[in-house]
């Protein structure tokens, strides 16, 4: 009788040991479903941010209210769209430019627009100041981005004067 009990105990210990070993090495996965009838409430917050644009010989600022998202990509997309809208409203650019998508990788934000955003007649200085307005806006929004790569239709932006094949630092060049 004792032998039978001892055999049962050792078999039980072996099975438990095998199951534990399988669980620890990832062969056995426990999935507990946490379905709930009450939808999760996401906190939607709004924040006031400054948009910078170069006007004449100085920086001009405009306060905008943004829906602040946890995702830095969506935040930059909102910011950039607002910034392009501001340029269009101020009649600095002749067509409205929309940011198609934003991706962040290794501290660099890849911003893809639907059109080449700048006017052909602008001087290089004006062009750089305009770009630096967007860079300054992103920098002051504090979204943890150090560089920005500008794209048009998900391709590298081509400009007759400026080289956009490399990312631009948010602190700018001037």
């Amino acid at each position: 009788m004792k032998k039978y009990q001892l055999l049962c105990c050792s078999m039980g210990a072996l099975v438990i040991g095998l199951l534990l070993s399988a669980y620890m090495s990832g062969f056995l996965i426990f999935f507990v479903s946490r379905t709930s009838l009450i939808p999760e409430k996401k906190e939607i917050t709004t924040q006031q941010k400054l948009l910078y644009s170069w006007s004449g010989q100085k920086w001009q600022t405009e306060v905008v209210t943004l829906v602040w998202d946890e995702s830095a990509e969506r935040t930059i997309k909102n910011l950039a769209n607002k910034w392009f809208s501001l340029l269009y409203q101020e009649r600095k650019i002749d067509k409205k430019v929309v940011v198609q998508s934003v991706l962040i990788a290794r501290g660099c934000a890849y911003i893809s627009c639907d059109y080449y955003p700048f006017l052909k007649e602008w001087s290089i200085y004006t062009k750089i100041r305009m770009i630096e307005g967007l860079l300054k806006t992103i920098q002051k929004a504090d979204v943890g981005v150090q560089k920005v790569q500008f794209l048009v239709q998900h391709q590298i932006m081509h400009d007759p004067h400026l080289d956009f094949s490399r990312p631009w630092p948010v602190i700018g060049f001037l």
Partner: protein
Amino acid sequence: MYFYRRLSFLCLFFFPAQAMQPHIIVLDPAGDSHNPGRIIEDTFERTIAWRCAAYVQEQLTARNDNIAVFITRQSGDFSAPLQRAQYVNRIAAHAVVSLSFYQATETADIFLYMYGNGDDFFPIINPLGWYTADQAHLLCAKEHGALAALFYTHFMQHCHTYASVHAPYKIPCTALFGMAVPACLIEIGLKKADDWQWYGDHLVAVLEKACNVW
């Protein structure tokens, strides 16, 4: 006969080849057959830039025997940015001046640019190493600054009453990409399309001064 042969052999020692070589200046007018550039009054930027470059070439070569001036494209030619960089690096130009113009609306401005992409804190130590095209400017970073400073000093002395002169900026400009020789980009705002000749005379004066300094 023997005497002349001996004399020419001795000349090799007393007059090194470098001393007899002319100063090579390359002028790079903006635009090409694919890119007309900006509209200035009733003409295009590429026409004005090319005419200005041709004028500077004519003036410099007529006045100086020791200066050879080349223009990167002829009227109606196409030149890619890296093609220009390869050309100036191969001929080891002493100075490359890229010319660009635009229609000034309020005030005439003169902007000076050098190539820089934010990597200037890491100077090239090994001149025989492999470096990418966007690092080529680091091979003569000081000379870039010296050339731009010459232009800035001259324009400040002679043109500041007519145009506002801006100190040189380091930017990632396409025209100077990949150039391992002293190079700078001059962008001039023209109130009238014919003003280019006045600036052309000043460019000639600066380049003559630069050749005397070097």
